[in-house]
């Protein structure tokens, strides 16, 4: 049986080390091996050096079109890609061209590692924001189950914003307990998961909650569309998070077949 693979895309920047560390931290949880890939653009020395140092096999490919790399993730054995967000901490972009392209086009989850990321191994705690839609819940469920079965603590997060403020809240203690219980039953695969509730701007709350909770990774379901005006939460999290961000593609077919659940403002008729 072939081993499951994590592809770690590295360049010659300093973030290569964080990318490989992240991939290595994930490998035992996913029962996978790590293969580093480097696209030759400006030499190979740093990538080779770091891969060697970390004892990770490195495949160097010649200025391959990015789509070919994306296609490699369609291989059933490829379960995940890890890429660096951008070369430098002061880069104003939320992620570099390579990271964005792979994340937007990949059929598999992609971990985007910030340049200043603190990578902790083993991964002990993951934050999974849930927006209360079945589509994101479905996308996050498998990842959540995988982490939980490996002993990782999964903390779910729901942020009430202007669009998702509950219609009614009689008593915060009783009602949020009941609401949380039902929310987890509907949207979380893991019995006994913990749900954190926040209110305000979702992206901001994801970042601050990740810091408060001291998580090792954030797992975000998304629709793989970073065009202007879209994915505001993903943008903010990628821009500000200090831990790797696992982006889980939402299957569009699934998205169309599921409606937004009735427990938040979509109830309004």
């Amino acid at each position: 049986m072939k081993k499951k693979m994590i592809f770690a895309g590295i360049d010659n920047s300093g973030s290569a080390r964080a990318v490989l560390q992240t991939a290595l931290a994930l490998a035992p949880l996913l029962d996978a091996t790590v293969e580093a890939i480097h696209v030759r653009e400006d030499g190979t020395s740093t990538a080779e050096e770091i891969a060697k140092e970390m004892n990770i096999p490195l495949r160097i490919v010649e200025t391959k079109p990015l789509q070919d790399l994306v296609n490699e993730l369609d291989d059933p054995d490829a379960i995940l890609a890890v890429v660096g967000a951008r070369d430098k901490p002061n880069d104003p972009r939320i992620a570099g061209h390579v990271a964005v392209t792979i994340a937007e086009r990949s059929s598999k989850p992609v971990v985007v590692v910030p340049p200043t990321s603190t990578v902790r191994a083993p991964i002990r705690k993951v934050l999974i924001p849930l927006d209360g839609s079945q589509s994101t819940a479905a996308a996050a469920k498998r990842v959540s189950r995988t982490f939980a079965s490996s002993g990782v603590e999964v903390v779910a997060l729901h942020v009430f914003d202007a669009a998702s403020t509950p219609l009614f809240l009689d008593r915060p203690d009783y009602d949020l307990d009941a609401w949380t219980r039902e929310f987890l039953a509907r949207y979380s695969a893991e019995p006994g998961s913990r749900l954190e509730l926040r209110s305000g701007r979702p992206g901001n709350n994801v970042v601050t909650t990740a810091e408060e909770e001291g998580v090792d990774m954030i797992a975000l379901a998304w629709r793989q569309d970073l065009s202007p005006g879209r994915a505001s939460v993903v943008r903010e999290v990628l821009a500000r998070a200090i831990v790797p961000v696992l982006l889980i593609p939402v299957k569009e077919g699934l998205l169309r077949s599921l409606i937004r659940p009735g427990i938040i403002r979509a109830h309004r008729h």
Partner: protein
Amino acid sequence: MHGSTEPTPLGARARLPLPDRRFEALVFDWDGTAVPDRQADASEVRERIEALCRAGVDVFIVSGTHVGNVDGQLRARPTGPGRLFLCLNRGSEVFRVEDGDPVLVWRHTATPDENAALDRAAARAVEELARHGLEARIVSERLNRRKIDIIPLPEWDDPPKARIDELLDAVMKRVHRSGFTGIADVVSLVMETARAAEVSDPRVTSDVKHVEIGLTDKSDSAKWALDELASRGVSSGLVLIAGDEFGPIGGATGSDSLMLVPEAARATVCSVGVEPNGVPEGVQHLGGGPALFNALLDDQLARRRDGRAPDIDPDPAWTLTLGKKEPWFRRVNESLLTISDGRFGTRGAREEDGDGTDPLLLASGVFERTDDTWVLLAGPLWSNLLVHQEPQTPDVFTLDMATGLVLRERGDGEHRLRTARFASATCAGVMALRAEGHPDEVATGPTLEPPIAHDGLEQGKDGRIAWARTISNLGGGITVAAVTAEKLTDDRRVIERLCGATANPHHVPEPSAAIEIVERARAVGFDRLLADHRAEWATRWRNAAISIDGDPDTEKAVRFALFHLIQATPSEDEASIGARGVSGPAYGGHVFWDTDVFVLPVLAATRPEAARAMLEYRIRRLPAAREAAKRRRLQGARFPWESADDGHDVTPRFARTPEGIVPIRTGTSEEHIVADVAWAAVHYARWTGDDEFLRGPGRALVIDTARYWASKMRFDNRGRAHIYGVIGPDEYHEIVDDNAFTNVMARWNLRQAAQLTEHDGSPADAEYWRGIAHALVDGYDERSKIYEQFSGFRKLEPLIIAEMADRPVAADVLLGRRRVADSQVIKQADVLMLHHLVPEEVAPDSLAANVDFYEPRTAHGSSLSPAIHAALLARTGETERALELLRLACRLDLADLTGTTASGLHMATLGGIWQAIVFGFLGMRTLEGGGFSIDAHLPAAWKALEVNMRIQGRHVRVRAQDDAIEIVTDQPIDVSVAGGPNEHVVGSVSFDRRANGWKRVST
């Protein structure tokens, strides 16, 4: 009309499409349907009728002839429990048949004038027919009718039914010779003469040989039978009507079609006759005559014998069908489908285990302690079965609100699974379940199982009866016993489970107590339990039913609210009604003001004994309330904001919110509950007319609460009294001074106590209380007519939430607690709650100004808010906005608008819905000194609103339309309409709206 077809050969009976239903009653024609003719041997049908009655089926035989003919031929003497009625004499008489001679139970007797009119009509009809050349003869004078033979020839003296075709030919030849086109023409002529002779509402029919003029006909028989059945909770969808002449004959209406009265709307109707001209729409033509009719009876007997699951009447106005919903709605449905006998609530979880279900049995008032609070103890689960079907097979659940039965249907054909369950309304603690399905797909499994969230279950067996009990760490427990019976055939397994539950908050009931309940239930039997249960629900609805012409969705939602409120409350001992009743675990079964202020009024008006039991809960906790006051160095009784078993405050102290850990201050500061309890006591006494209550056991609820306020208030140097540091109903603003609601309710409480003590000879107390009540500030500004919600409210940031957000909205989540606290955004009616509860205590004509000021500032973020605002807006005439808010309240649980209905129904919202209807749209209030006032304001969509209720010992029905009000009462009562003078109403009275007000128009 369905086309006429060849009658079905009897040899093909096994393949006949007999109605695939279990009926609770049979109404059928006699001659030609049950027997071939009046001379035939009726022994076969007699045996079946007696057997059906033994099985609990009610049987109504309808015939035009007299009792001697039918009883002489049938000679049935049923022993019950099903009843046999003979509805005879063309709808003029009904006899009950038991072991002796038939007993007349109803008769329509013509007045002398009516008899004279009938004589005139018959004589004129014969003359008119003769004028056309048709010889006819009056052959007899019967009760309430006259019979005219239109073929008075010796050869047609007494034709048997079997010669109907020949008779028809002969009659048609005669009438054609006389220039009539058919028998219908003759009937029309006779009808004209009857009307000319001033017969009131003449009934003219023909059986081909005769034309009869009468005051009654088979429609009266059918109506009587169906009314009688409805009074026992058996509505038309549970009734089979059979006859042999539904279709027209000779152009005249088939005589059995007269049984198709409006009351029979959903009955299954079958014809076993020849029906040469087809049958009317909705009638199933089986043909086959009496032999096939016997097959119908055999099929019903087999269903009883096999213990098949009962059916419900699928009346869309009374049933709530929940199916094909997204999986996550399953737990919500379980709350909506909860059944209760008043003490025990069983959530409507499917019978088998599986993802997404949350089965639960709760007992009202039986708690256990968790780390930080008290919660309701979960009891052993009794409704579990093993179901082996594809999990994806859709389930359809139907709650029959008319009879308190939950039906589940799944799959089809040989894979059809059906279960039916109810919590007996007549036998305390009894729950019953029947299930039927393919033998490979449904099985019994363990009879009792432990609740999901409870460790430890004691269980055992006593013969065939299994028992189990859960034990609370507070010493109480829930003990359940159950017995399961099973019948297996090649293609079906039928399972019956009878369950008995008993519970006690302070000791664990012995298994023997639950076993005894099961034994009693077993002795009665499932079918009898169900029949009694249905009859009790029919009685309940006679005192509670609400109809809204023109708004079926709201009507159904209102009935849903009533159903759950009525079923969730016991009628004796004490009633501890938690915020979610016994439909789910949320709020731990804690009792809030929800119970006293929102739930009690509906029960006072529908089941007064249940309202009394709710007050008994407070009375028994007076010692704890007095102790609470004493601990605060105050006098009287201080009821806790949240109460569980012993009456001490069980309000949590902290909550985790999106803003972090926040303190919960309601337990220490939301003190209006003290006056709310007094309000409940006074409201109950006024509404029910139970005057002794306030002089006796309820007196302390008013006096001791007044004492509390007297010791709580503080006087300033101007002699004005204040209440400091409280929380009003608007919990967005905590620890405020002089909350108008609290102060005015306290003032009302003191005045009520003064009134009571005056009556029993303590005028000094009365004078003192009146004095300090007068000194209490209430924040009222005479210029603007607005009450300031609390001292300093006007200085807060004037945010109008209506302009900022779609409402309802949990504004504390949207804006944050601090922002909301510093603004004029409020959670729910606060000042306006005064106008709702104690309108006599607020400034006259101040409602509109306060609605205008406070409603736009109200986020309606409390589930208590929409219904109460619907009531208030209806009173100010803003009926469309009122209806919008009522509909919102109606959908709160049905559409899970809070996201928490899975954890139980919002009992206060359900109670608020009734209050919006009765206090709001009907504008009903009790009058000082007895009687009630009414001032109806209906939205345009409502053509009429009809409410049944109990008030001051009377049964009253009010029907309101835009321009008319009808009041029907079983005992005289005073009524004031729209502020007019008191009118003494006896029986039925109508009022019409005129340009200058309402005018009494009839008695």
